[in-house]
């Protein structure tokens, strides 16, 4: 079989399953009693095994199989979770990851020597009485063909998917009942009654299957009776009572679905197991159907859920399509082109005073704005995608550093543009490492300070206006501003006077300067002096901003502020001599008109006083070395007041052109890393204007 075409899918799904394995193991490590987690990860392992075997990657399949054996022992509680087991499992997952990535890039499977793990795993597995594991909690393995000789007399047939869901629920301590409802012969509104029954069951639990399917019930495509499988924590009696309370219900039969499946699994017993089961059953009810959607009426034709998740609720997942990110980028670019052309048309409309055109364009503007929002939304990805790799990293790192901590992650569902997501991982990782390495004290030191031994590290994402804020917090020792001052002076980054004139908050910000590292001992983890400035420049190229708040012995908070979208922003266009620049509206406070007399000098620096606040003045023409084409003779001076966090500055320009939607284009590799310029945009007239990086100006 040519498996190449499936490679992509194999890789993507394997990665997802590995991630789930990692998550599951972490959960298990935190709460070794929570054996139900093993059931979930067992399935992940099993899927990887199946897929890799199909793809012909026998080594991967073998290793996964060995791991599965260990899971099985844990699951059936024949073995207790301990550190040794966890470490081996984690390492196994790492190896699997390497192997999968290797085959993904066309390399061989056996990039890692798995014999060690394999024997370790089997040693673990055989250490306790090996799996004569009863078939009871049927894994996905439960026989692809088993469904075929399904119990003849049973009025309902369970597909493999159904069985998995049912077993999963049963293992989770829920009851799974097969409810057979027979309506009265004289019942007129059968669909209404069946709806009421479904409703009643929905309130008591989760309906996972019905025969005939919900949409047939709705259309009265059944005789007098129908079958429902429900997952609930209520007792049989409660369900019976609630259904019987609905009028025109003749009878209710409730059986344990788990028993039924087990009976069906043993074909010999089958005829005996279910003879009395079916009362006067309508033949139509016997037709096997794919798993009905959980929401009975909501999605009439939803396909059977792809992967039965542990929680039956997850079956509700909507329909989705995997799209190549390149296609989305193209879409975004086209969107950008559209906006540029729209702006150009608007300009034509205004200059030639074509009201008809202007009016049509207003309509079009609404459409493009909506379209733009949709395209943006399509590109949005929850930050959880980045966050989910950190728990594992933090765990390993904490072990390595001998620190104890508890990592709290909040706001994983916060969404960010895909391009930002791809880039944000490294900076966050660096900040986390930093918190662990420099921030948190050793457990003993913490105890000496009267703090709990276990440190708290937080990774929090949330919306803040048009921005997304990601915070890395710790309750460690904090950053000592004096130490930072001293270091900065020692390294010759600033003079002693300068250091002393900085307030504590600004002094701490010195850590973001290139070449600054306070680690006394250079460790493997951080402290090579390429840390924080790299974080800062990365965040800034993403149009964001990073800041730090700290209190000695109470901890530090690193706050990354990122724009929601990167591609299209509102900006103010300004002119300096003959050159046009765009200033992102997000950082603009106000624009004011002043005269030369309003500008004062303080310590040789030009400032203005605005509403009682002293604001430094930046002459854009001088900073950017704009060639002087003509003298500015006007007395009026235009100032754009901008802010970054709490700091403000006034940018002096020659002229204000207006506010406009601009599409941000990168300047490319050749011009990467320019200070003060964060990108470029194409204006309505086809010319290119530079976008100013306000934070770099200040």
């Amino acid at each position, binding site marked *: 079989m040519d498996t190449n075409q499936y490679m992509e899918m194999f890789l993507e799904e394997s990665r997802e399953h590995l991630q789930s394995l990692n998550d599951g193991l972490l959960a298990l490590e935190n709460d070794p009693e929570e054996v139900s987690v093993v059931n979930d990860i067992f399935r992940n392992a099993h899927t990887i095994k199946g897929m890799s075997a199909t793809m012909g990657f026998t080594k991967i399949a073998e290793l996964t199989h060995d791991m599965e054996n260990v899971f099985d022992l844990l699951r059936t509680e024949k073995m207790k979770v301990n550190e040794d087991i966890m470490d081996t499992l984690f390492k196994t997952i790492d190896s699997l990851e390497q192997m999968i990535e290797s085959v993904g890039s066309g390399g061989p499977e056996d990039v890692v020597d798995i014999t060690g793990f394999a024997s370790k795993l089997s040693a673990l597995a055989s250490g306790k009485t090996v799996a004569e594991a009863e078939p009871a909690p049927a894994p996905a393995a439960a026989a692809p063909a088993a469904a075929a000789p399904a119990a003849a007399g049973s009025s309902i047939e369970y597909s493999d998917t159904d069985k998995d869901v049912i077993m999963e629920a049963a293992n989770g301590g829920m009851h799974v009942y097969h409810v057979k409802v027979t309506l009265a012969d004289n019942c007129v509104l059968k669909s209404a009654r069946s709806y009421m029954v479904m409703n009643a069951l929905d309130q008591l639990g989760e309906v996972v299957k019905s025969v005939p399917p919900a949409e047939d019930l709705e259309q009265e495509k059944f005789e007098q009776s129908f079958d429902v499988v429900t997952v609930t924590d209520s007792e049989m009696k409660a369900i019976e009572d609630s259904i019987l309370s609905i009028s025109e219900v003749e009878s209710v039969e409730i059986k344990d679905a788990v028993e039924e499946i087990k009976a069906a699994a043993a074909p010999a017993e089958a005829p005996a197991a279910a003879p009395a089961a079916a009362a006067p059953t309508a033949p139509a009810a016997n037709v096997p159907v794919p798993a009905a959607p959980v929401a009975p009426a909501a999605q009439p034709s939803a396909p059977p859920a792809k992967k039965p998740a542990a929680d039956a609720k997850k079956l509700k997942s909507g329909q989705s399509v995997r799209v190549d990110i390149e296609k989305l980028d193209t879409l975004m670019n086209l969107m950008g082109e559209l906006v540029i052309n729209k702006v150009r048309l608007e300009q034509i409309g205004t200059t030639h005073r074509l009201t008809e055109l202007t009016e049509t364009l207003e309509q079009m503007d609404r459409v493009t704005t909506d379209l733009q929002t949709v395209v943006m939304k399509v590109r949005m990805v929850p930050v959880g995608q980045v966050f989910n790799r950190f728990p594992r990293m933090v765990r390993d790192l904490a072990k390595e550093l001998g620190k104890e901590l508890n990592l709290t992650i909040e706001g994983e569902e916060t969404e960010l543009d895909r391009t930002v997501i791809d880039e944000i991982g490294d900076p966050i990782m660096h900040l986390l490492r930093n918190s662990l390495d420099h921030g948190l004290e050793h457990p003993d030191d913490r105890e000496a300070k009267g703090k709990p031994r276990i440190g708290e590290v937080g990774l929090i994402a949330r919306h803040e206006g048009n921005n997304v804020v990601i915070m890395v917090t710790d309750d460690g020792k904090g950053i000592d501003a004096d130490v930072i001052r001293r270091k900065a002076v020692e390294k010759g980054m600033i003079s002693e006077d300068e250091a002393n004139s900085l307030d504590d908050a600004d002094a701490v910000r010195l850590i973001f300067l290139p070449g600054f590292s306070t680690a006394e001992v250079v460790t493997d983890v951080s402290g090579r002096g390429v840390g924080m400035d790299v974080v800062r420049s990365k965040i800034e190229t993403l149009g964001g901003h990073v800041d730090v708040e700290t209190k000695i012995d109470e901890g530090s908070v690193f706050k990354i502020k990122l724009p929601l979208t990167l591609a299209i922003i509102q900006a103010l266009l300004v002119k300096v001599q003959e050159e046009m620049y765009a200033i992102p509206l997000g950082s603009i406070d106000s624009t004011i008109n002043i005269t030369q007399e309003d500008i004062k000098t303080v310590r040789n620096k030009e400032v203005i006083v605005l509403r009682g606040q002293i604001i430094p003045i930046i002459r854009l023409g001088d900073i950017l070395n704009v060639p002087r084409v003509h003298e500015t003779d006007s007395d009026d001076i235009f100032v754009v007041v901008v802010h970054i966090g709490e700091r403000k500055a006034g940018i002096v320009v020659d002229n204000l052109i207006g506010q406009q939607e601009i599409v941000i284009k990168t300047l490319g590799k050749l011009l990467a890393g320019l200070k003060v310029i964060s990108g470029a945009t194409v204006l309505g007239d*086809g010319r*290119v204007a530079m976008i100013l990086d306000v934070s770099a100006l200040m």
Partner: protein
Amino acid sequence: MAKELMTVTEGETQVQVVAFKLRREEYGFNILNVKEIKGLTDITRVPFASDFIKGVINLRGSVLPVIDLKKRLGLQDMEYTDDTRIVVVREDDLEVGMIVDAVTGVITLNGEHIDAAKSVDNENSRFITGVGKVEEERLIILLNLEAIIGLQDEIK
């Protein structure tokens, strides 16, 4: 540097170049690197960029950096004329425009008519892969695109 020569000597014995003028000399880029040739348009200056980067232009909606090739090669500046062109070249995934005084055409050079760069030794030799000879007296200096646009450290 050798790479471009390799393709010249090892592959077919012939190589096609887009030839253009810088002041009085004739230069050439391998035609495989040339994407298009366009007339001079508005160039927006990019503050803080290296001096040989003239600025950026709008190439059908995308922003394209433009190199002043004469400045890059250390040649004397010259006023733009009607013949001035921007040659858009591509190396790996990097696209760049080059300002040239005039494009003279596409020329096919025979491998044996190309001298390796060593024989034309000057300070700019790293930008040059060789010199091709056409007809009797016509010399075309073949440029090393990688060296001209690829040196990140120098640009910063």
